[in-house]
């Protein structure tokens, strides 16, 4: 595709996704909207590894580009890809226990610190693969996340996983939904494509 840089795509996509967002907002609960749409897809993202996250976002973005309504349901280690450092200025919504802090410290702090499922080499692997991706013009995970958001991909955090690992809402990117297994199943049941990654 000529002349469209990734940032431009994100910007344009964000603009055109507003009507999608409007549609989504119009059906306050997503269930009726999902039923109406014959081609929806659901990706359950369980894994935290960079390679698996890349695959999940590539599929989700391709599905959105192909006109599908897309839900990504992040559970267990998968949620760490959407972490962001809580802003210091913001008072924390709930006080953290020592164990909460240990979990937060042990898990990847954000998408840039995800391990690789193979050839990790104590952190050299992810750097190497990111360098190769840059050289070969492959969109980075961060660009893919931005694109997914711009395309109106619905991203849902598993409520139990967030709770279990001692996180709060302000530990994650803004604009994510929080829901449970039943909401995930509903999205999957009304999808033509459903995958666990």
């Amino acid at each position, binding site marked *: *595709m*000529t002349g*469209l840089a*990734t940032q431009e*795509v994100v910007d*344009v*996509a964000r603009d*055109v*996704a507003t*009507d*999608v967002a409007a*549609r989504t907002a119009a059906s306050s609960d997503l269930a009726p909207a999902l039923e109406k*749409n014959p*081609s*929806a897809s659901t990706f359950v993202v369980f894994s935290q590894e960079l390679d698996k996250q890349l695959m999940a976002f*590539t599929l989700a*973005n*391709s599905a*959105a*580009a*192909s*006109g*599908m*309504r*897309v839900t990504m349901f992040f559970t267990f280690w998968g949620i760490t890809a959407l972490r962001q450092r809580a802003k210091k200025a913001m008072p924390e919504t709930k006080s953290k226990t020592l164990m909460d802090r240990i979990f937060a410290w042990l898990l990847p702090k954000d998408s840039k610190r995800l391990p690789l499922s193979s050839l990790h080499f104590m952190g050299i692997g992810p750097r190497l693969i990111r360098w190769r991706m840059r050289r070969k013009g492959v*969109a980075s995970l961060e660009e*893919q996340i931005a*694109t997914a958001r*711009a*395309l*109106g991909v619905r991203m849902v955090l598993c409520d139990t996983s967030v709770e279990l690992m001692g996180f709060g809402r302000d530990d994650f990117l803004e604009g994510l939904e929080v829901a449970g297994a039943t909401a995930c199943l509903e999205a999957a049941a009304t999808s033509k494509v459903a995958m666990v990654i």
Partner: protein
Amino acid sequence: MPIVQLAVALRGMAVGDEVEVAATDAAFLADVRAWARLTGNALEELEATASRSRVRVTKVDPGSGSGGAA
């Protein structure tokens, strides 16, 4: 992500408009064929070599592009 870029470009176009896409991605041709089947847009293949492919897409489906057909 040429397919995503193509879908985004299509959102700004009217039905009947054409866009030409050139990509160096080896998988682009297979992907754009699948994309055309999924979205119902018309595809014409202009060039297909190992290192470069070029297609012309005519917008058929008014709802195609990001976020899902309404």
